[in-house]
Every structure is written in C-alpha cells, then in structure tokens.
C-alpha cells in the first residue's frame, strides 16, 4: 500500500487506541448489566456516572443533565420530537436553519407533516445565521429554536451565544446540534444559554454508535425511546457500557488537548486554504474565513464534479469528501452550498478537507500538489470548462 492520508475527520474519526483499551474490559470482564442488583454489575452504574461527570464538566453542565444515546442522529431526533410533544400546549412553531444536518432537517420536515410549523432561516454567503433573523422569526407559539453550533460541511461556527440570549429573553427553548463542534471548540452551556445539545462520540476519536443529549434540568421533555427505566427513565435500553466508557475516555482526552489542538489544526487549515486559493484558479473557499471549525476547509472548484475529484484523490491515497458523507450517493448537490448561494454546477464541485491532530504539513503539501494536477486533469475533460474557455477567447 502506498500513501494513506485521512482528511475526512468530519465524517468520522479514528477511535483512539487508548479509548479502545479503556473499553475492552467492559466486553469480556465487566460485562454486567448496570441495572442489576449484584455488585459485579452494579459497579458499572458507578462507571457510567464517572463518564457522565467527565462530559458534564466539559460543558459546564450537571452530571444528571447528560443522557446517553446511540449517536448524534438519535439526539437530534429526540430533542426535536420530544420538545414538540412536551410543549404542545405552549405552541406548535419551531425555528431552525436551512443548513442543518439532515438529522435535524429531515426530522423538522417530518414534524411539518404532523402539522408543526417550521421556519427554516436563511444564512448569508458565509453560512452565518443572523441572530436578528432568529428574533424576527419568533412568534407567540414558538417553542423551540434549533441552530447548529458549527456546520458539518463548510465549518462555519454560528453565533450561538447571541441566539441563546435571544431564546432566553423570549423564554423559548434553545437546542444546538454540536456534533461537529463538541471537543473542537470550547462550549459552556451556561454562558451560551443552551438548553439542549447533541453530540456524537465518533466525531472526537470515540467509538461509533454512542452519543449524548444534554438536557438542562427543568426542560420537560420525556422519552423518545420508551421502555426500561435507564437514563433516569428518559432513554430505555440496556446501557452500552463499553460505548459509554469509550465516549467518556475520548472526551477526557480531547478536553485536555482542546486548545492546543485547535491552535495546531487551525494553523494548518489556514496554510491549506492559502495555498489552494493561490495556486488553483477558479476556486473559492466555502464558509466563513474566521468563524470556522479549526479542522475544516471546504472549496469549490469550478467546472468540476465532486465525486470524480474524490475518486482521483482516493487513487492517490487521500481520503476526503464532497458535501456530507450521508448524502453521497444521492444526486442532489449539498443543500448547504445551495443555501449559501452557490449555483448548482459549482455546488457539485465541492471538496471538504477535515484535519486531525495527526495531520502534518507534509500531508497538506502532498494534498495540494495532487489536487492541482487532478483539478487540471478533470477540467481538461469538462465540457463546462471548454465552453468557458471559448467564451473567454471571444471576449
């Protein structure tokens, strides 16, 4: 095998070997069901509590405000659907944005089919939500504002604090999908007035299939998955102890390195952005230049379709994505890129590069060098580029 450079950390991350090590005893040794009476298993309840505490601390939350789920999608579904149900007497309107992940967007559309009113806020050309637009969208019957912390495709970080303050002022619950942001930027639920927050372990070097929903004490939502009395009766199902330990361990490790990681990755990211914009013509950066996840860069190369680009990069041992992983295979261009105003043919030609702390400057140099060649090669093959050149000549 030749080169292997993984630059798709926004899709998923490598589980840290230390995390796996921490999980291992809970498969074959301490495998007991935490709800059991005997000490062998009941000890796992304690272990769970410790993980909950690690996570709570990282958010400025209380231990009993953290509820384990099977991942970001479940957390998002829970937050939206259960809020709508619990606050039905208060109103039937929710506010979200056009650039949410499908876990929010499709859930909101589902709720619309059940008679809920949904406002999907526009964003500006950098993907930013205007807090004043949030305020303007509030109605007497608004029960929930859900705005993602940072966008998974273009990396833009939203003005969460401002939106949180508006929500609080108006007595409306505020949920944020922080799946991309948690453990990549600092988050304090008190300071930001966040009432609910979704996260997923596999986005910060934890295992897949485990996540959590932070629910502020006093928020009256009930279960999304009904059954046993786990998670203070709010989320049924035998606890995924190895997964929980994996997520807790990953959170502990990631929290300790948050600042230095962010610094390292954002410098590398800026180096990447600068080189690409300078060296490859007809290219734009998507997302805000400054209010941006430390590990995210997203480009559009005109006259180029994304999948070809990805496959050619793959042939050079480079893993990247176009749009979000979940929608690849679909024929539609990214709803996020359309929302920031890109025309269809440009939206089709986007590339997301998401770094990790293991990414090196050499990796980035290799990427950019290959990218230049590949973009040139695909453009050679593109009828759109042909037409463009012909028009240029005429001028």
């Amino acid at each position, binding site marked *: 095998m030749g080169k292997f450079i993984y630059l798709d950390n926004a899709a998923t991350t490598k589980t840290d070997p230390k995390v796996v090590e921490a999980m291992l005893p809970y498969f074959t040794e301490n495998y007991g069901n935490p709800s059991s009476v005997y000490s062998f298993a009941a000890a796992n309840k304690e272990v769970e509590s410790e993980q909950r505490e690690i996570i709570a601390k990282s958010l400025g939350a209380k231990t009993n405000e953290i509820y384990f789920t099977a991942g970001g999608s479940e957390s998002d579904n829970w937050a939206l659907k259960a809020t709508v149900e619990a606050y039905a007497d208060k109103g039937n309107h929710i506010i979200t944005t056009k650039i949410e992940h499908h876990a929010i967007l499709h859930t909101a559309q589902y709720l619309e089919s059940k008679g809920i009113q949904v406002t999907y806020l526009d964003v500006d050309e950098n993907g930013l939500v205007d807090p004043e637009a949030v305020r303007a969208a509030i109605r007497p019957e608004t029960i929930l504002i859900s705005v993602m912390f940072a966008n998974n495709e273009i990396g833009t970080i939203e003005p969460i604090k401002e939106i949180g303050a508006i929500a609080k002022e108006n007595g409306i619950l505020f949920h944020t999908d922080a799946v991309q942001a948690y453990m990549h930027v600092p988050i304090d639920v008190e300071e930001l007035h966040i009432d609910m927050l979704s996260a997923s372990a596999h986005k910060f070097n934890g295992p897949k299939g485990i996540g959590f929903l932070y629910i502020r004490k006093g928020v009256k939502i009930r279960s999304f998955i009904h059954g046993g009395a786990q998670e203070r009766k709010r989320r049924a199902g035998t606890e995924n102890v190895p997964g929980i330990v994996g997520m807790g361990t990953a959170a502990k490790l990631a929290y300790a390195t948050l600042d230095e990681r962010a610094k390292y990755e954002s410098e590398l990211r800026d180096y990447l952005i600068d080189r690409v914009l300078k060296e490859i013509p007809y290219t734009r950066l998507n997302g805000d230049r400054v209010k941006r996840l430390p590990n995210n860069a997203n480009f559009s190369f005109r006259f180029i379709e994304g999948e070809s680009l990805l*496959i050619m990069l793959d042939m050079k041992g480079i893993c990247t994505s176009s749009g979000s992983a979940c929608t690849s295979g*679909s*024929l539609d261009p990214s709803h996020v890129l359309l929302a920031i105003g890109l025309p269809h*043919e440009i939206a089709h030609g986007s590339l997301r590069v998401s770094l990790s702390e293991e990414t090196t400057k050499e990796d980035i140099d290799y990427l950019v060098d290959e990218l230049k060649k590949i973009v040139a090669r695909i453009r*050679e093959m593109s009828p759109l580029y*042909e037409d463009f050149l012909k028009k240029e000549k005429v001028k």
Partner: protein
Amino acid sequence: MAYSEKVMDHFEHPRNVGEIENPSGVGTVGNAKCGDIMRIYLDIDDNQVIQDVKFKTFGCGAAVATSSMATELVKGKTVEEALGVTNKAVMEALDGLPPVKVHCSLLAEEAIHAALWDYAEKHNLKIEGLEKPKSDIHEDEEEEEEEY
C-alpha cells in the same frame, strides 16, 4: 461506491477524451443541476461509418466511465450499428453499475443519440429509429426503494 474494476479502469484511463474540430455531429446532454453533462463529438465518413469519436464529461466516476465505454463501443461502427448501442450494452461492457448510477449509462446512450441527431440534421438525413433526444434523462429515474 463499489464500482467494478472495469468502471475504475475507464475512469482512471478514459478513452477518447477530447474534441473534434468540425465534427460531423456533436451532442450535449444532461444538466449541471443534476451533476452530469456529457458531450460527444462524432467524425462520420461518407459510408456512415464512425471514424472517430471524442467526449467531454462533467460528472461522477460512472459518468466518465460510461462516456468512455460508449465511445469505445460506437467507434468504427456504422450509424445504424451505433444506434443499437444501448445503455444496457454500456453497463454490461462495464460489468455493471451501482443502482444509483444507472442513469449515467442512459445519459451516455442519449449523448450518442444526440450527436447522431445533430449529424442527421446537418446532413439532412433521416435515420431510421432515431428520435429527437431528450436533453435530460433524469425525469426517468426511480427511487431505489420502490416499495415505500
């Protein structure tokens, strides 16, 4: 994506990429909205034999590979024979395509037809069995999950 080796080969080493100056016929199908555009150039001699064919494609791996394979399949054929090159033939020659990518083979068939139509119009010919091509085949598509 689970492309076959043949698809990958034609994607990595596409045959007949390029333009033909003063082609006998040229056809462009698809649209940027859907993410694929194919353009086929034909050089057809007086015996209605396709002497040369070139393509340019904006699109995914399957779009490039089907364009490449389609040009290979029609090269050296008569116009009539070329008309018989269906999307099925292209798919088979590529050892199949993932279900979501079947439309690319339809687009390739359509691009050939569009170039032939252009050739026919320019030369005032009527080609038996050739209908005015749709520029966009996406309307034919089906959801993968038919049952719900």
